[in-house]
């Protein structure tokens, strides 16, 4: 058994002549917090869609949670969690109903959903809100709930696409506590963010420029490599090299 949650080799996606993702190669280790950075239009979303089994690569190889991105897309979907900045829970369902719904979608038994659901609501401190509509919760709680729902079926990997955009600075940090806890429980975290201080919280970071992975290392090593004292400096040096327009 490999301890690699994601293996990516020369993964490429073309739209016509446009190479949105151009031969990217990297591995993500099980339990790692992996930051996936890049300017707007660098190809992050396209790469993530392939890894989540939502789009076929043009060429190259990749496996996610041990499953092949060409042949086993459905297996990949069942074994990953996904959360985007765009709030994805049902606002007009209650907290518990959302949990039941997503638990059901991922094929958990009723008794399992009940047991884990109660546990989750109490760890999140939402016991009093369990029967409230999700739409009534403050944004920060919604995002924490969305994350917990994304890992409710205990996936091997969770993909987080700008999970903290627009969230207040206190809640943003509480969100990262949840990420650390999930990683400590062995869940691999694959996360994108525009906040450079959050890049520092990752074990390793890759930075995409014009469809290619131009840098990949720990935050400390990247800062050394680019001779700067902040991730902002690293990002700025790399993203400024971009030739193609954003998005």
């Amino acid at each position, binding site marked *: 058994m490999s301890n690699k949650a994601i293996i990516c080799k020369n993964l490429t996606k073309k739209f016509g002549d446009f190479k949105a993702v151009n031969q990217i190669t990297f591995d993500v280790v099980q339990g790692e917090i992996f930051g996936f950075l*890049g*300017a*707007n*239009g660098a190809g992050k979303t396209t790469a993530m869609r392939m890894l989540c089994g939502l789009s076929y690569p043009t060429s190259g190889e990749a496996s996610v949670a041990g499953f092949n991105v060409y042949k086993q897309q459905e297996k990949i979907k069942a074994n990953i969690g996904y959360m985007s*900045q765009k709030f994805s829970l049902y606002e007009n369902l209650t907290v518990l109903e959302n949990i039941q719904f997503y638990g059901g979608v991922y094929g958990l038994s009723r008794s399992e959903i009940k047991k884990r659901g109660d546990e989750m609501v109490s*760890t*999140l*401190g*939402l016991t009093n809100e369990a029967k409230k509509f999700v739409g009534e919760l*403050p*944004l*920060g*709680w919604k995002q*924490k709930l969305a994350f917990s729902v994304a890992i409710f079926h205990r996936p091997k990997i969770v993909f987080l696409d*700008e999970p903290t*955009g*627009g*969230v*207040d*600075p*206190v*809640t943003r*940090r*509480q969100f*990262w*506590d*949840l990420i*650390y806890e999930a990683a400590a429980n062995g869940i691999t975290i694959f996360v994108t963010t*525009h906040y*450079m*201080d959050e890049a*520092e*919280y990752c074990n390793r970071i890759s930075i995409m420029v014009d469809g290619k992975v131009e840098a990949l290392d720990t*935050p*400390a090593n990247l800062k050394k490599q680019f001779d700067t004292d*902040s*991730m*902002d400096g690293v*990002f*700025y040096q790399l*993203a*400024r090299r*971009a030739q193609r*327009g*954003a*998005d």
Partner: protein
Amino acid sequence: MLMPAVSLKNIIKTYASGKVKAVNNVSFDVERGELFGLIGPDGAGKTSIFRILTTLLLADKGEATVEGKDVVKDYQVIRNKVGYMPGRFSLYQDLTVAENLKFFATIFKTTIEENYNLVKDIYEQIKPFNNRPAGKLSGGMKQKLALCCALIHKPEVLFLDEPTTGVDAVSRKEFWEMLKQLKQQQITIMVSTPYMDEAALCDRIALIQNGTIMSLDTPQNIINSFPDPLYAARANDFYRLLKNFRTDPAVGNCYAFGEYMHMTMKDAHNTEAFIKELAAKYNAEDAEVKKITPVIEDCFIRLMRETDTTRASLNEQAI
């Protein structure tokens, strides 16, 4: 007394029949020619304030003026005096770059030529795509076009609602460069952002949370008013030390901040040396401690904890 460019007095705005207080008794003035920042997270009430000032939304209570004109009585006059770039891209997706700009110029009974000097620097960056439909532009180019359209009638006050949200760090820097240029043209600019690092680029800022202004001053004065010495610490096992410090009775606040954790001490006599000893007590390897100057985000976190302690403690249980 000079008339302020924008003035709000006790503005209240609620939604859902009064259940949601979006703007809670907000008062402040923006001076002419000022670059004023409204800094706060989603749901803080920033957009409601912008929409009230641009006469697109009625407040429940309170008064507001723009260039001395009342937002309710004189709404037609105000609409001719202000430029507004909403948070959501609101240009015509199926019109080209040139057509959009011409459309907005015509609506305001002017021409592109008449005010060209105002948009020149920004417009020339998107001019190569003049014939492309706005819907097919990249995020950064859409933002530049929207700014041109908001400027083309030479507004006296420019309202920019979260112009840099979802934009990468490099494009954000470029956008703030453009604002600096605009400021030299004597236009009053009111801008909102959830990115605390952008606050330092404004003349004055209001830190807003849950519809309430927590602090309003120059960025420097807000930083100077941070009451306690602030320290940055790190160690090899970062997360473990963070947890240890958080539960230590000698530590005031402690939270992650990039590669360091920022912390205050309950007793001001406890300085670097004490914190180093504390780290040693928790067997932190390669611990580093230094005194630092707070940034706006530190001030925001502090104010949030002070003004809303009940909710903050509830949230802490949630971890």
